[in-house]
């Protein structure tokens, strides 16, 4: 929070400091190319081609938001290509995409003339390019936000809306799943994970919904209690040897998994971490099948769950749908209404199963170049509002 306040103050200072020279140009103007770098690799813009992994699906979703105007009931974009604020100008599958401003866009032509998206850029390169003003916009891993800010990169941080949870593979645990889950949940030092691994960009997670969304997250404890965890574990007989899987390509998951292993060892719990093939991260838009976890014989795995909506009911329903194939929580109730009691009841029901152990909430972090104006952090489930962004200088060079 302190960092965020500092960043806000810095931003305000920069804006105020640059107010005088920018004052004649404060009114948005058209022109320029918005250079975007993302880590995902998109193979095709054809909506009928299914994404290979959640990262690609997320990236493709953002591109669809540029190309299509209509949003269907299930959240995907539909309609006629070119009805969105931008149209495809050039396309190099998996490498680069260029979108030109749609002069006929229903809500008016976007400010920027075009958007150039480089695909498959590693996080480190994205930060460097932002630092060197070779990119205007790029998503940044939350754990690198602080370092990027220290290096002078302009940062935009959302509400914590992505849950990193430890999910047990239901079929691999017996009747002791509840106690095993409770022991694991109590041994995790979530504060340390937030402070050290996430570099304070996030919140400890005790429930499936964040406090800002449900208002009941405080009812789920997040404090570490190694003593209780040890007691619970000692009651489990025979003590299982658990394997915690994480995505091989996800360094954050690896760090968190290793930390959980250290915490578990401290509590006397036999838990080892093991990398799983880098088939992609979980996303709110795509559910991972249970066989993935079973294939390499893990008892639990780390799963990223991004909120598809700020509304607790929709978010929880999406989470349940996503977790069900993994944890086998088909019997868990789905909130029938949006009332806090109903949502809490469902959330508590899932938590009581012990099959899902929330770890941390993470925000969406974006790096922006200094010339990007009117960037508004999208709410959970919303796309990047690139049509409203304008560039302070059309020519970055």
């Amino acid at each position: 929070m302190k960092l965020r306040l500092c960043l806000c103050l810095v931003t305000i200072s920069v804006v105020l400091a640059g107010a005088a020279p920018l004052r004649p140009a404060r009114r948005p103007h058209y022109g320029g190319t918005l250079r975007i770098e993302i880590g995902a690799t998109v193979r095709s813009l054809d909506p009928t081609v299914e994404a290979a992994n959640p990262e690609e699906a997320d990236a493709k979703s953002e591109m669809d938001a540029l190309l299509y105007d209509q949003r269907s009931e299930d959240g995907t974009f539909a309609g006629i290509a070119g009805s969105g604020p931008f149209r495809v100008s050039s396309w190099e599958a998996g490498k680069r995409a260029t979108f030109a401003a749609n002069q006929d866009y229903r809500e008016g032509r976007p400010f920027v003339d075009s958007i150039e998206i480089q695909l498959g850029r590693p996080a480190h390169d994205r930060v460097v390019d932002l630092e060197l003003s070779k990119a205007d916009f790029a998503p940044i891993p939350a754990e690198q936000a602080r370092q990027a800010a220290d290096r002078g990169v302009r940062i935009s941080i959302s509400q914590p809306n992505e849950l990193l949870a430890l999910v047990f593979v239901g079929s691999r645990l017996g009747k002791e799943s509840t106690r095993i889950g409770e022991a694991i949940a109590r041994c995790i030092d979530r504060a340390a994970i937030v402070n050290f691994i996430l570099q304070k960009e996030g919140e400890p997670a005790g429930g499936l919904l964040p406090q800002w969304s449900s208002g009941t997250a405080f009812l789920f404890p997040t404090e570490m209690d190694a003593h209780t965890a040890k007691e619970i574990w000692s009651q489990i007989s025979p003590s299982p040897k658990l394997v915690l899987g994480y995505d091989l390509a996800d360094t954050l998951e690896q760090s968190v998994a290793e930390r959980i292993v250290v915490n578990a060892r401290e509590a006397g719990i036999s838990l080892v971490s093991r990398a799983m093939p880098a088939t992609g991260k979980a996303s709110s838009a795509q559910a991972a099948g249970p066989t993935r976890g079973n294939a390499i014989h893990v008892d639990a795995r780390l799963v990223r769950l991004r909120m598809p909506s700020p509304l607790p009911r929709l978010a929880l329903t999406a989470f349940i749908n996503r977790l069900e194939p993994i944890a086998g929580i088909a019997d868990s109730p789905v909130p029938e209404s949006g009332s806090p009691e109903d949502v809490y009841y469902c959330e508590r029901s899932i938590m009581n199963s012990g099959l899902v152990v929330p770890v941390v909430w993470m925000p969406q972090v974006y790096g922006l170049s200094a010339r990007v104006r009117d960037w508004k952090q999208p709410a959970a489930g919303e796309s990047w509002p690139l049509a409203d962004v304008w560039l302070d200088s059309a020519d970055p060079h």
Partner: protein
Amino acid sequence: MTFRSKLFINFMLALLLSVGLVTAGVTVATRRAFDELNRQHTDALVEQFQREYDRRGHEVLNRVQGIAEAEPTVRMAIDLSRPNADISVYVNDARGVAQSHQLDFLDFVGTDGSIISSAEWSARFGYKMEWVTQKEDWAARGSFLMKLDTQEGPAVALMAVAAVRVGDKDLYVVGGQRLGKEFLASLVLPENMRAVLYLNLDPAFQPANLIDNTGPVVEAERFEPIIERERAHPGSLTEKINWTFDAASAEIFHAIPKLGRQNELLAVLLIGNSQRTVVTLERHILWLAIGVAAIGILFGLFLSWWAAARVTLPVRRLAAGAREVSDGNWNTRVAVRGNDEIGQLAQSFNRMTQELVDQRERLIQSERVAAWREVARRLAHELKNPLFPLQTTVENLQRASTQNPDQFEEVFRESTGILLAEIENLKTIVGRFSDFAKMPQPELGSVDLNDIVRNVVKLFEAQFSAVGRPPITPELHLGENLPTIQADTTLLHRAIENLILNAMDAMPAGGILMMRTTQNDGNVDFEISDTGVGLTREEADRIFTPYYTTKQHGTGLGLAIVQAIVADHSGRISVESEMGVGTAFHVELPIKPPHPQATPVVVEEIHEKKVEV
């Protein structure tokens, strides 16, 4: 076995023993030399390893101290010394620093012992490493071995600690290098040597903890006795491991225990020295020695044979001379060469044979004289008896012619009768001597001895039971299936007659005359025994001497003739007698006489007398 063979065998045994001893001595000396060389080699390598180990320790210490003195570390220490310092910003720093300084382990530890950043196990941030905060002069301590917990499990590392002090707070830099296969691979070892490391991570011996520069060691359980001994009593020791029955597969391992700060055994380094080169060299030397020994033995064999032949030549000549002498050739002489013991022996031999010849000549002369005397005495004795009646008769005739002429005619008639009788007696005596002198050579033919015995006994049947004398009972025990022999029937008949007559003379009071024929080992034996008065030892000794007799009216030629006949048939005769019990003659006749015309020497041997009294 000849003397030469014995001498040769002795030479060979001596040679083999000498060569064997020399070969064994060379082998043992070579092995000891190699063992000593090997030990020195291993010691040098152990020393080299120790230097390398110490150098690594210094290197680790220098790197850790270098990190501690580097500007970023000092800045970190300054930041962390401030109140409410945010240590989270440094959580990922250790990894990069460790990589740049080629350290496997690196931890930044706060003044309270909390891990700020860990390179090897970044998730351990916040945990305590309290041993670092102990009051110890880490710079003076230098590097040390330590057991660490890692994500993969416990490990042993060569560690060093450096402290950065800012104000009253310390920032500890704890770094080190893993003691593992990479460490072993970095050791420079000569060919045929290898380094094996046992990491003492578990309460009991674990084969998986034994590694070399490629990973886990195969057949690690073979090292268990060494490791267990080290675990019980850490100290340097040397042990040989035979991997197979081939001695060349053996390795000598020198175990070096590596202790931690608390003198706990953390690792055992085993410097292995393959024996293949040494054993191969030893075998090469051994085979060379065997080859040389074989050549030496062959050469010695030839020399021994030659030397034995040369040394035994005079002895063999002496032996040949002795055989000549034993064959009756007493004029044999051996050549005398040199004046050594053999030469003196040869001279003595020659003197001995000369003396034998001389003595034989003298003996022959004396025997001849004695024989003539005996003949003369016997002749005089035999002739004296008839001569006395002749003389008396002639004197009666002379007296009758002068004193009683009228009775002369009657005396003359009686005297001429007496004279003729005595003259006839003289002729008989002379005839016997003539018969003995004219003993004919046997005319051999196929003869059944049993038939001869039966025929002779039949001739004497009347005399055995003659009126006026005690009876003699003959008993015949003639062997069945007795083979025929090559002999002269007449001579054998005569010999058996003489033996029966001799027995009858020996039994004036009658008795039992037993005759037995048997087959025995190429001979046919004939035994005749009586129950007469027996013979004294002296009589038995002289019983076959011609003209010797124990009777009042005997020529002493009967048994001499028997002996001559037996000898002419290449047979043997012996006598056994006991006074008052009887006498037995034993005759052995060959089925096929080897030499019908036996040489004098053979005859002399055959004439051996066996006398048991």
